[in-house]
């Protein structure tokens, strides 16, 4: 398991390759999810600022990843999440899962994402010419947890 919380950008492709390189050929299925800063519908997002809770963040991510490993047959799990100032198009975070079964790899990645959205202490703020707004949590993200 590798949990990374950092301000610096990360290279999604290099991380995916490094993750897969650790594989022992027992895990035929590798899934990655990468989150990218979306521009607003109005197209005027200047900066996305991501605040987090140092200490709790790592604990929460580790707990979520450990739970995923106990629920599915996983060879390895990777979680990377950035904080600080990001621009549209920047990668915010990624998760990766390796498993002998594609269903497990997919489900575990979705589980990680669902919990990461609503149970890891990150808060997003969108900054435009018009001002700054904290992103509101979505009911659908909270609801997504009920399926697990």
């Amino acid at each position: 398991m590798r949990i990374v919380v950092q301000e610096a950008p990360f290279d999604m492709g290099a991380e995916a390759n490094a993750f897969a390189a650790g594989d022992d050929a027992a895990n035929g299925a590798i899934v990655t999810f990468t989150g990218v800063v979306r521009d607003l519908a109005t197209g005027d997002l200047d900066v996305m600022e991501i605040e987090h809770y140092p200490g709790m963040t790592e604990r929460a991510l580790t707990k979520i990843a450990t739970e995923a490993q106990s629920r599915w047959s996983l060879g390895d799990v990777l979680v990377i999440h950035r904080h600080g100032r990001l621009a549209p198009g920047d990668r915010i975070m990624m998760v990766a899962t390796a498993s002998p079964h594609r269903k497990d790899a997919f489900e575990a990645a979705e589980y990680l994402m669902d919990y990461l959205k609503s149970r890891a202490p990150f808060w997003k703020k969108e900054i435009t010419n018009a001002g700054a707004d904290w992103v509101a949590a979505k009911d659908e993200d909270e609801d997504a947890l009920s399926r697990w």
Partner: protein
Amino acid sequence: MDVLYFAWVRERIGLPKEKVETQAATVSDLVAELSAREDRYAAAFADLSALRVALDQELSDFDAPLSGVREVAFFPPMTGG
């Protein structure tokens, strides 16, 4: 006890962290105590359904007892990912 604030809770209260001497038995008691201090606290804590609380870096709830807790954090629902 360390009390931490994040996101708009931090902005409304005007600081990220403070030491609080309190005999509050539960999180709710602490919230009431802080809210009584100044308007900015009362404003931040006006709607508890819009807030989350962590005790020693674990998500908890407003009924939870504070005995033995060293770090309390208040923040809005999380928006990671």
